[in-house]
């Protein structure tokens, strides 16, 4: 019986060593820590204003970007995905997604700044694949320094403000206006943030 138990324990530890690997993933504990995502101007759209039929490419630069703030534990990395609709649809009508006369192509661009300031001069452009811009970065930039200490455990009287920092995400892009019907066009961009 004792021999049987020993075999079971050995098999179990091999199994779990492969799952965890060599990485110390502080994010495994990040459910104890909160992260918040806020739109700094929630009442406004990413608005291209009035465009003219067949106008071609119309771009909103980072200077015109929608800005969101990410507040989280400064030691931790966050994974940010910014996913946009491929087309703005006339009056938001889904049937227009396959009708070139009532859709306007949209290309997403996004950047982040994690040096503690809302400063586009410090912004780093995110990689875009398809209609998703993605990046992984520490909430507070650490330069070439090694990763910081493990997050302070949540304890009685824990004050997250002492360990939090704010990073900023800039969302912008361009539309390509072809021979489309006149009218209002709209689409959505979804931003998701999680700890690594």
């Amino acid at each position, binding site marked *: 019986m004792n021999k049987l138990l020993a075999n079971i324990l050995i098999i179990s530890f091999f199994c*779990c060593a492969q799952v965890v690997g060599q990485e110390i993933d502080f994010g495994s504990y990040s459910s104890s820590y909160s992260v918040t995502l806020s739109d700094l101007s929630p009442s406004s759209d990413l608005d291209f204003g009035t465009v003219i039929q067949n106008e071609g490419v119309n771009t909103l630069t980072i200077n015109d970007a929608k800005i969101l703030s990410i507040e989280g534990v400064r030691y931790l990395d966050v994974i940010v995905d910014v996913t946009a609709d491929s087309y703005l649809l006339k009056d938001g009508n889904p049937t227009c997604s396959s009708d070139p006369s009532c859709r306007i192509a949209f290309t997403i661009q996004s950047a982040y700044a994690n040096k503690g300031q809302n400063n586009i001069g410090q912004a780093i452009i995110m990689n875009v694949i398809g209609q998703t811009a993605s990046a992984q970065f520490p909430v507070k930039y650490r330069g070439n320094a090694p990763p910081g200490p493990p997050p302070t455990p949540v304890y009685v009287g824990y004050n997250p403000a002492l360990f939090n920092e704010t990073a900023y995400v800039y969302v912008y892009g361009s539309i390509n206006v072809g021979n489309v019907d006149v009218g*209002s066009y709209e689409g959505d961009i979804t931003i*998701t943030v999680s*700890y690594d």
Partner: protein
Amino acid sequence: MKGLVTFIFIIISGVAFAQAPDRVSAQINISTEAVQSIELITVNSMTVGNAQPGQELITINPITDLNAGFMIAVGTPQAEFRLDYFTERRLTQIGGPGFLIFRYFLSGSVLEEQSTSELFNTDNRNLRFNEEGRFYIWVGGEVNLSNALPGDYEGDFTIEIDYI
């Protein structure tokens, strides 16, 4: 002993399947308004005609004078637009050194009826196309001939229309 095996498995499972990290999301709307491109059609050019001997000032009233130029702007029905133009332009003498300064007066209306048009000034250049997407413009002006050399003069007139 069976109880001990069960306990060990619970611990290991707890590590392997740690809680999923928090995920927060937000949504942004993208919007734009597509409008029809603006066309400006010249129906009649302005006709100044010949000055009479001793005549120092030629005036073409855009609201009443049949010699006024006539243009139609075509755009998105009911859309607002702004109209801009240079109020003074230099006309150069054809084959000579002379020139004239022409002051333009424009009037406009949503009706195709010159007498209903209103004179534009710097305060009322934000306008709106009618329900057919049309706006009617008449072009007049005045020129002082007191220092003009005899001859023919020519010049151009630029008008800009942009959606607001």
